């Protein structure tokens, strides 16, 4: 299924412009984004999937994925749902300045929600 979609896209489409140049469709706190998804998962999918989101929150976890990209999980006030942000649109120097407990603003594209709300192609704004 995925491969057929990939093939169709090969025939028809150009790559996205980089996230740095895209304006955010939504700006909200990690807790507000988590809350919207917890309250209305299907509505939130319709609202947020593929949209560029500017999210501000506290870093509760830092990890590295299987592609060696840094992943920050933002979680305000110990809420159950975090915002998972994969920093694969960003250079390394800025990432290393951040540690657990820091407040941060990140821009990324929403893919939906698994255990957390998932943002991809993220960059650090401040």
């Amino acid at each position, binding site marked *: 299924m995925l491969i057929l979609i990939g093939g169709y896209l090969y025939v028809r489409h150009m790559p996205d412009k980089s996230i740095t140049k895209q304006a955010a469709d939504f700006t909200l706190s990690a807790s507000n984004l988590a809350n919207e998804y917890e309250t209305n998962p299907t509505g939130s999918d319709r609202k947020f999937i593929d949209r560029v989101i500017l999210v501000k929150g506290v870093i509760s976890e830092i990890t590295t994925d299987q592609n060696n990209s840094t992943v920050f999980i933002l979680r305000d006030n110990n809420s159950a749902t975090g915002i998972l942000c994969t920093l694969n649109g960003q250079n390394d120097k800025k990432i290393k300045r951040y540690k657990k407990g820091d407040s941060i603003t990140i821009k990324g594209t929403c*893919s939906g929600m698994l255990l957390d709300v998932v943002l991809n192609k993220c960059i650090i704004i401040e």
Partner: protein
Amino acid sequence: MLFSQAQNYLTRTAHINVKSANKVQNIVADNYQAACQLNTQTGQFKLIALIKSFEYQIGAMKRIMNTREIDVTEFPKITFEGKIANLKQVNFSKPGTYPVKLKGVLYIWDENSASDVDGTLTVLNNGTISVKSNFTVAVEKIDAEKIDRIMRQKLPVSLNLQPNTLGISKNIQIKTEATLKKQ
């Protein structure tokens, strides 16, 4: 020897790689944001991944494609869940690599199919668990008519594409790897 207690293991950054080789070039899709849970007492596992987290690369040029136009709100994720069928052959207290048989159900779009997958499970010295598997899905299993209908519903009307004109190979190769930590 201490008896290993029931533990839930988890990762939010499992990797799924899907590859289809056709006559012209390879189509590869990677997802580095899959979540995987494992209960070491019951052997139950669950792997979930968002369709929109897949990044496509076409051919040797590695061009990244835009997937904005696919509407996934009805079925935003794929799931593979089940049990380790040979759980008794895995010793979670002893570091080492164990062959595992994953028996479960694969949910893609509105289809589900029973799937048996072979993999390896490695208990690492630092207490984490690494699980890897490579398997092949035969394209015959997928109903071509249904894919055509879904594509027409979910993709722009300007498209008039038959699945077989893409020259997709008979088999799709899937690799997964996950490093899970105790919760």
